[in-house]
């Protein structure tokens, strides 16, 4: 029996599509994959550089999403659901390959004080601004060397554009911690850019 196409999937919201998917509507799932495949691939790209591997990971993530479709409940944010699955999978994968740098939580103080210290510290060592001298590619390059803990939050916030609430659910940490991690990540990224700038200048002087 062929099902009649009564629903215009392209006009539905992500959450509505996911609800249809959790009721075994494979076409709704098709639309979800269509919408999120590139987004997810570029998200994975922040952790892994091999293109073929990325494709495999994205595929596995979507398959996991479909398998856990019954766990999705009405009212949950779809991004949270998807990124939680993606990050959990990435974590196990990178743990296996020991590419995931583990930093014990006690070493990183997540409170606001640490962030303010960093903010005031960056007062002293840098006087000139970096704006304009760097391309966007350089910023992404510098992002790779940012501390893993901050990087996660920073990517989810500034590249993927999620809300603090969603990130706090995905990473399973309080909202205040998310905020401080993001901002510390930004400051660290700035520091890294500054360092790159310094090295470039030295290279120019040597030439």
């Amino acid at each position, binding site marked *: 029996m062929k099902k009649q196409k009564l629903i215009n999937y392209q006009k539905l919201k992500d959450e509505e599509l996911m609800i249809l998917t959790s009721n075994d509507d*494979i076409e709704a*799932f*098709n639309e979800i*994959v*269509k919408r999120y*495949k*590139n*987004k997810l*691939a*570029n998200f994975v*790209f922040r952790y892994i550089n091999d*293109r073929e591997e*990325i*494709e495999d990971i*994205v*595929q596995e993530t*979507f*398959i996991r999403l*479909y398998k856990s479709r019954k766990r999705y409940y009405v009212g949950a944010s779809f991004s949270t659901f998807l990124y939680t699955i993606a990050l959990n999978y990435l974590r196990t994968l990178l743990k296996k390959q020991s590419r995931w740098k583990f930093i014990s939580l006690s070493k990183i103080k997540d409170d*606001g004080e640490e*962030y*303010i210290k960093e*903010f*005031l510290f*960056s*007062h*002293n060592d*840098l*006087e*000139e*601004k*970096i*704006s*304009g001298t*760097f391309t*966007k590619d350089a*910023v*992404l390059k510098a*992002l790779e060397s940012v501390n893993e803990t901050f990087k996660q939050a*920073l990517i989810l916030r*500034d*590249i993927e*554009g999620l809300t603090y609430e969603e990130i706090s659910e995905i990473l399973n940490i309080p909202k205040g911690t998310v*905020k*401080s991690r*993001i*901002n510390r990540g*930004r*400051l660290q*990224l*700035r520091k890294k*850019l500054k360092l790159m700038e310094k090295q470039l200048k030295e290279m120019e002087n040597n030439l």
Partner: protein
Amino acid sequence: MKDECKKFANIFPDFLDNELPDKEKEFAKIHLQKCKPCKIITEDVIFIINSLKETKYEITLDENFESKIISHILTEEKDNFHKFNTYFNIAASIIVIFLSTWFFINLNNSSNSKNFDLKNNPIAVVNEQQSKLVNFGASATVSNIKKINWVGFEVGYNNNNVVIKNVFPGNPAFLAGLRNNDIILKINGQNIKHIEQIDKIINSIDAGKILKFVVNREGKLYQFDVKVQKRYIKY
């Protein structure tokens, strides 16, 4: 100055998100005019945020990526079903083996214990008699149960027509759409004039098969497909 910078650092995240109350927003603006390092940091961070936000997709996947995933899922589900089937078969056969061995062991045990009890333990003899009685009762009730075909309505006569008097909700007739006061004209093409005919027809086919009812409801003709159900009754 340091204290002011500390205060600014505190509200800096909300300042970036544009979520500050007016009073603090004013403070931030004034502070940025006064304090050069804070201004530089702010501009840098805004530049960083903007460049991250504008990150374009560096990787685009094939257009047939969706269909690849979906065919993968569908084949996997099929495999799972087969797996489930084999597991189910294995489990079922294990249960059958277990039950049959249990049955034989019990058979042996009961004959053994009988000999033992008769010799040494008079109380056990009484118990055995009781259990025999219970067994009799059980087998008697088994013989009182009868299997019939069932659609779930009561019929009667009205002006020489066979009319449905009562449809039990949730039963096959009700689910098919038959309602009270429907006049039954035909079942499986056979004209209905007597109630006995209906009984014969229903009991002549296997459970699970479908009966085609033609009824007259308020002057209009309707056709309903009723699935016959198996049902056990006590009598």
